[in-house]
């Protein structure tokens, strides 16, 4: 009986203070999708960087006077067979593969493009997915159904034992399983909410830094597109100024310059650099909300910010896919 009262008290205490992480499932889902699209945009930017590096390397190769040959590859078959003979495995290492190369090697190197920044994008995606996993309502449902199953099994056992105890005229057990069920669910929800709150608070400065770096990288990769377009506009202005007035050439030049002007403006419009700032804003709105979970306005603010972030990240990605 004493145990039963203590459990009831604990259940009431937990109910009074419990917070659910599952409230944020939709908002974090949008955040997650936004991060995915933002990183996919960055991947598209990297393709531009790769193309630029390839062009620069090929230009440099044109200036080379060295005979083209292969170096450091001769020993590979012998080393491979010798290693297999001794250890029954492939003993060749990444260093062996790297030593086998075409000379001149071609500078700048094209692959891998920005491996660290790529890894950082991957970790941002992983973090957003993990936030989603913690707020996954399906997990909560699975847990509740497991608790229900456990609860009815405990009840069945208590009833069976009680029947035996009644036959022996001994004191019966209280059926406390229902309360264990309630306390268990609330405790686990609270614990998961605490995990979410701790992660969002502690990681926020890291998210801010990572998003800032991604934004800087996006700015640097994107800048040459703008500079190159500026030069193109100058060329067309010279052509347009040379065109005689009152004729088809004049109209053609006008159309060409207008089309180029539109493309120039579009380049600024679809710049992906602002997307990462929206990522930080969404995370900040979420951080404020988990610190004040009773504030309904703040939960709505998270949803609004997450929607804005997700749609701008998607727009940036679609713009890249079109071009």
């Amino acid at each position, binding site marked *: 009986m004493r145990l039963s009262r203590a459990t009831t008290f604990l259940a009431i205490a937990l109910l009074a203070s419990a917070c659910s992480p599952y409230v944020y499932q939709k908002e974090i889902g949008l955040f997650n999708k936004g991060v995915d699209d933002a990183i996919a945009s960055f991947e598209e930017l990297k393709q531009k960087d790769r193309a630029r590096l390839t062009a620069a390397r090929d230009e440099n190769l044109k200036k080379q006077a060295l005979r083209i040959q292969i170096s450091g590859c001769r020993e590979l078959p012998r080393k491979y067979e010798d290693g297999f003979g001794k250890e029954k495995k492939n003993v060749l290492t990444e260093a062996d593969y790297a030593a086998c190369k075409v000379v001149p090697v071609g500078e700048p190197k094209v692959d891998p493009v920005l491996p660290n920044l790529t890894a950082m994008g991957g970790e941002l995606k992983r973090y957003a997915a993990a936030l989603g996993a913690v707020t996954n309502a399906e997990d909560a449902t699975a847990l509740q159904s497991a608790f229900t199953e456990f609860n009815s099994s405990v009840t069945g*056992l208590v009833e069976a034992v009680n029947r035996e105890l009644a036959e022996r005229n001994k004191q019966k057990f209280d059926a406390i399983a229902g309360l264990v069920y309630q306390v268990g669910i609330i405790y686990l929800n609270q614990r998961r909410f605490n995990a979410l709150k701790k992660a969002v608070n502690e990681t926020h400065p890291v998210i801010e830094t990572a998003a800032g770096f991604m934004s800087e990288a996006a700015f640097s990769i994107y800048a040459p597109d703008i500079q190159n377009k500026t030069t193109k506009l100058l060329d067309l202005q010279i052509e347009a100024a040379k065109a005689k007035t009152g004729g088809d050439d004049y109209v053609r030049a006008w159309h060409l310059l207008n089309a180029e002007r539109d493309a120039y403006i579009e380049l600024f419009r679809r710049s992906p650099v602002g997307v990462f700032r929206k990522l930080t804003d969404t995370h900040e709105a979420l951080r404020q909300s988990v610190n004040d979970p009773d504030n309904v306005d703040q939960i709505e603010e998270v949803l609004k910010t997450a929607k804005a972030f997700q749609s701008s990240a998607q727009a940036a990605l679609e713009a890249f896919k079109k071009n």
Partner: protein
Amino acid sequence: MDTRLAIHRNIEALDLQFQAALDSSEFDSAEKIRDSISALNDQLNELSRISLDELEESDEVKQTIRQLSGSARDLEDEAARIRNIASALRKGAEALQKATKIVSSLRSLVPIG
């Protein structure tokens, strides 16, 4: 950034000269100014490359990757824990059902004292 902005200001100043050259149909002069603007744009591109390479190799980026990875791992562990608890509860329920059967069958085997 200061260097970049200074270059942009130079480009803007050259663009004014470029427009003036076009207004007076001095095309040779306009083409020379265009080349100067292009050279400045090349400098901007070069600065972008340097910034990107410095960022890519910076310790701050590597440290941020580690921190993000740690946060993601903690959350993944927490998410896995709930699934593990659910699975442990199901196993517990199965064990309890077996125990209930044993207790019920005891009635027919053991005489009540």
